[in-house]
């Protein structure tokens, strides 16, 4: 009988507080959905990448030597590794279209077939899908290289080119760059191409870095000079995948957790109020001999039902867009999408974690409410809602009535005001994060290079050269270095002409810096943790030799990790032949002999297609900002509904006293304005720290240093407008509820 009464009461509470119930349900669904969707996305991304690496035998390292290695088998057995020689050259397909063509490997870095079939005969070629599709090459089409036609038999992915960077200094792939593979025989027909070696060590517990260093020594002992050496761990074309997976899985946990926290506040509130209302009945049930457990379970049923239905309604649909999302991101990462699998662990977590957290928090609420004795509970009805310490401590004598009333209204329920504050802050973080995504993409695509480079073409030669360059070109020498003890981070030290006309570097004060000094970019200086004039140690990546450099000036740019110095000084300091160089900046196309193996990048290419690449990013940003606005709206609507529900008598009373509808709404609903503004302001520093930790993780995993999180004023204002708009809309919806409250509510008050 009494249980039936309670059930009826629960039903009544549900209908009375429908908005809270629906709101918390939506938040649980949203949280579960994102947790499941983004989690499955991250799992599939990682699994597909890992499978590709293993099945197609990703290299452990690759290197280029000054002369071809003659006795590979001997070296293989000495280093306990598989070493395969490959050939490549960059082919200028058209203006702005560069195809890097590889000879087919048989042991390491085997092409993965994304679509179509592998090359089997001569005259066949594989292309990477994004390049093919964006330039109108279909399977079966012909492509002309050096005057000879090749049939495209399929689309490929290479394990050492999962992230399609043309040059290692790049940060993002560009649309005009693609990769292709032809048979060894066909490649020989080109008559050009520079050899490089891929290494895969046989299984052993020894760290790769150590084995890598030993192999280097073996090669040097043979009297062969190593021109370039890259371990897979330091290879951006490989390790950016790990960074991306890490960021996605970070976001896939943080965002749903924040949303779930909001749901927890609301559900705890519902339960707490339910028990407060029912305390007489509970006291009676105790008195009648009901066990605590039975009563606990009874009140846990509501949150349990909410959490179970919510997590199912969120987690299962979360599986649907996983394939679309993976295929979307695989436009940026060239990895075969073989099959989407559902990660059982993540699925279970998406279903169980929300239930666990909601039920646990409800349990804590119930326990703290039911701790009183049955006699106390029976008396409980008399005990009105308490006045909290903030309300009591507040001295509002000097404040106008409207502000006073609004402050009191907000402070009346600390859980409600916390919810509003946190909710708006979460929405703000999401939105500003979306905006900063756009800004950092802009930076990565343009800001990185546009500011300082003043040349049209950048050449890199596979061997050292000393020949004079024509007018309009400047030689440079460059090598990769790492700071001691931080092999993940690398920087280029570049020897350039003193007073180079190809680089515009400015100091902190804005004054032009001449390249007759040693100049570091900000990311390089940060990486080395150095100030002007301090000697710093750096280790040359290729041979592990340590050098000491003294940086004279720090240039005010984030354009990559570079230290520039006069080329003669460079050659002397790093033991390079006098007058030698391995690259050139140029404003004219160089007429190089056919045997000079090189790669060339045009600056226009670097800039081209920025808009194209921004396309998907823009739609992502739009989605994130839209989601943030929706979350903001749900939260404000929920809070407004709570305020109205909890103030029916006050509102009714005000109407009796002759308040106009507008005046009532102003006092009651507008009270949230200050909290919304405060929540927004709180969101700004939170965004900074969120982005900060993301940048840090990028820096730690791939050594990418981007400018510190700085939220620009226009975006702060735009975000504020969006939040305030969402606030106005939900306030308008709540106004109807205020208007609908009859004056008789107050007249009935106290009668029951």
């Amino acid at each position, binding site marked *: 009988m009494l249980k039936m009464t309670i059930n009826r009461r629960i039903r009544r509470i549900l209908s009375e507080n429908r908005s809270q119930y629906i709101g918390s349900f939506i938040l649980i669904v949203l949280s579960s959905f994102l947790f499941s969707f983004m989690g499955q996305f991250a799992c599939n991304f990682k699994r597909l990448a890992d499978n590709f690496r293993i099945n197609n035998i990703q290299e452990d390292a690759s290197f280029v030597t000054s002369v071809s290695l003659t006795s590979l088998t001997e070296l293989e057995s000495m280093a306990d590794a598989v070493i395969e020689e490959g050939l490549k050259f960059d082919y200028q397909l058209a203006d702005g279209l560069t195809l890097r063509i590889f000879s087919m490997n048989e042991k390491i870095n085997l092409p993965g077939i994304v679509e179509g079939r592998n090359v089997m005969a001569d005259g066949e070629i594989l292309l990477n899908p994004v390049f093919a599709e964006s330039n109108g090459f279909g399977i079966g089409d012909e492509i002309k290289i050096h005057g000879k036609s090749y049939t495209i038999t399929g689309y490929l992915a290479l394990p050492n080119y999962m992230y399609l960077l043309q040059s290692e200094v790049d940060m993002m792939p560009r649309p005009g760059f693609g990769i292709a593979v032809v048979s060894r025989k066909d490649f020989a027909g080109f008559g050009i191409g520079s050899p490089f070696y891929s290494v895969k060590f046989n299984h052993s517990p020894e760290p790769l870095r150590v084995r890598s260093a030993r192999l280097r020594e073996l090669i040097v002992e043979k009297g062969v000079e190593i021109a370039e050496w890259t371990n897979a761990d330091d290879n951006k074309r490989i390790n950016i995948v790990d960074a991306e997976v890490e960021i996605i899985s970070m976001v896939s946990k943080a965002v749903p957790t924040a949303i779930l926290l909001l749901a927890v506040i609301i559900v705890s509130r519902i339960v707490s109020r339910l028990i407060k209302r029912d305390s007489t009945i509970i006291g009676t049930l105790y008195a009648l001999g009901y066990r605590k457990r039975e009563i606990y379970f009874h009140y846990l049923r509501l949150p349990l039902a909410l959490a179970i239905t919510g997590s199912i309604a969120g987690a299962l649909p979360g599986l649907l867009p996983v394939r679309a999302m993976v295929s979307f991101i695989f436009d940026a990462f060239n990895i075969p999408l073989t099959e989407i699998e559902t990660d059982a662990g993540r699925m279970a977590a998406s279903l169980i974690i929300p239930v666990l957290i909601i039920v646990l928090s409800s349990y804590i609420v119930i326990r703290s409410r039911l701790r009183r004795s049955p006699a106390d509970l029976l008396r409980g009805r008399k005990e009105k809602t308490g006045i909290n310490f903030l309300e009591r401590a507040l001295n509002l004598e000097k404040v106008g009535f409207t502000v*006073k009333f609004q402050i*009191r209204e907000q402070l*009346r329920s600390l859980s409600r005001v916390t919810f509003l504050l946190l909710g708006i802050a979460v929405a703000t973080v999401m939105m500003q994060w979306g905006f900063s995504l756009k800004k950092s993409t802009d930076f990565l695509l343009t800001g990185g290079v546009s500011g300082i480079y003043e040349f049209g073409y950048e050449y890199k030669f596979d061997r050292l050269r000393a020949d004079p360059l024509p007018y309009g070109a400047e030689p440079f020498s460059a090598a990769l270095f790492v700071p001691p003890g931080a092999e993940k981070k690398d920087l280029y030290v570049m020897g350039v002409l003193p007073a180079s006309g190809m680089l515009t570097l400015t100091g902190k004060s804005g004054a032009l810096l001449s390249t007759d000094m040693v100049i570091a970019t900000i990311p390089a200086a940060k990486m080395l943790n150095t100030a002007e004039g301090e000697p710093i140690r750096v280790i040359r990546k290729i041979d592990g030799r340590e050098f000491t450099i003294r940086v004279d000036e720090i240039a005010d740019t984030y354009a990559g990790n570079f230290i520039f110095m006069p080329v003669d000084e460079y050659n002397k300091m790093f033991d390079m032949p006098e007058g030698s160089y391995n690259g050139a900046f140029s404003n004219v196309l160089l007429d190089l002999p056919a045997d000079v193996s090189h790669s060339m990048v045009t600056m226009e290419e670097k800039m081209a297609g920025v808009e194209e690449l921004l396309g998907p990013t823009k739609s992502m940003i739009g989605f994130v900002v839209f989601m943030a606005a929706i979350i903001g709206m749900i939260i404000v609507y929920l809070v407004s509904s709570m305020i109205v529900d909890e103030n029916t008598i006050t509102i009714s009373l005000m109407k009796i006293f002759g*308040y106009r509808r507008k005046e009532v709404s102003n006092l009651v609903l507008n009270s949230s304005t200050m909290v919304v503004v405060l929540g927004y302001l709180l969101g700004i520093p939170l965004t900074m720290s969120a982005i900060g930790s993301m940048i840090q993780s990028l820096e730690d995993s791939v050594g990418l240093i981007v400018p510190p999180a700085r939220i620009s004023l226009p975006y702060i204002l735009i975000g504020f407008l969006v939040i305030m708009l969402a606030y106005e809309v939900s306030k308008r919806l709540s106004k109807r509820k205020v208007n609908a409250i009859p004056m008789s509510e107050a007249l009935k008050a106290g009668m029951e």
Partner: protein
Amino acid sequence: MIIDVSELRKSYRTGNVVTEVLKGVGLRLDEGEIGVILGPSGSGKSTLMNLIGGIDRCDSGKITVDGIEVTRLTDEELTLYRRERLGFVFQFYNLIPNLTVGENIEVVSNISTSPLKTDEVLDAVDMLDKRNRFPQELSGGEQQRTSLARAIVKNPGLLLCDEPTGALDYDSSLSILKLMQGINVRFRTTILMITHNSAIAGLAHRVFRLRSGEITEELVNKSILPAEEIIW
């Protein structure tokens, strides 16, 4: 004459059942008088008062208050009518729980054109020292005194009190009644009070008996008692 009610009818419909609550009620009260409506529970007292107070609308009949034909006012005009002319006191005080005593008074003075000072009315009901207390920290009598202060802060022409002592013990009731009589004398406020306690009729100028929606008796009190002499 400040209140003139004639032929007032009101019925409620719940489902298919129509209850006739007021069946042609007539009532008059002069300015500065205290009128008491006596009647058993369910006789329609509150309904009548809500109609006079412009909180509810009648089916037919006419109510004039201070020359205003209340029964013909639009919603907006009714709002203004309540705002400018009426003070309300309820049986269960209806103080706003999260506002202090002083702030509860300000809820009304906030929308009045020339309100009295909060401290002045609080002093009048002897609540000045509890100005910063919250309602739940007060006794019933203190809460009703606050509610009375709230009703008179705008210095209304008409004070409508629905069972103002209905929830109070004898001593507290007496102090409320004394205050009301004092207000009536000091500010010449017309007071219409509902009660089912016939002893209270002793302080009224006019007494109306309501039974099943009809005025069965109207009485002009020749020997008005001071509140402190009322006994029950």
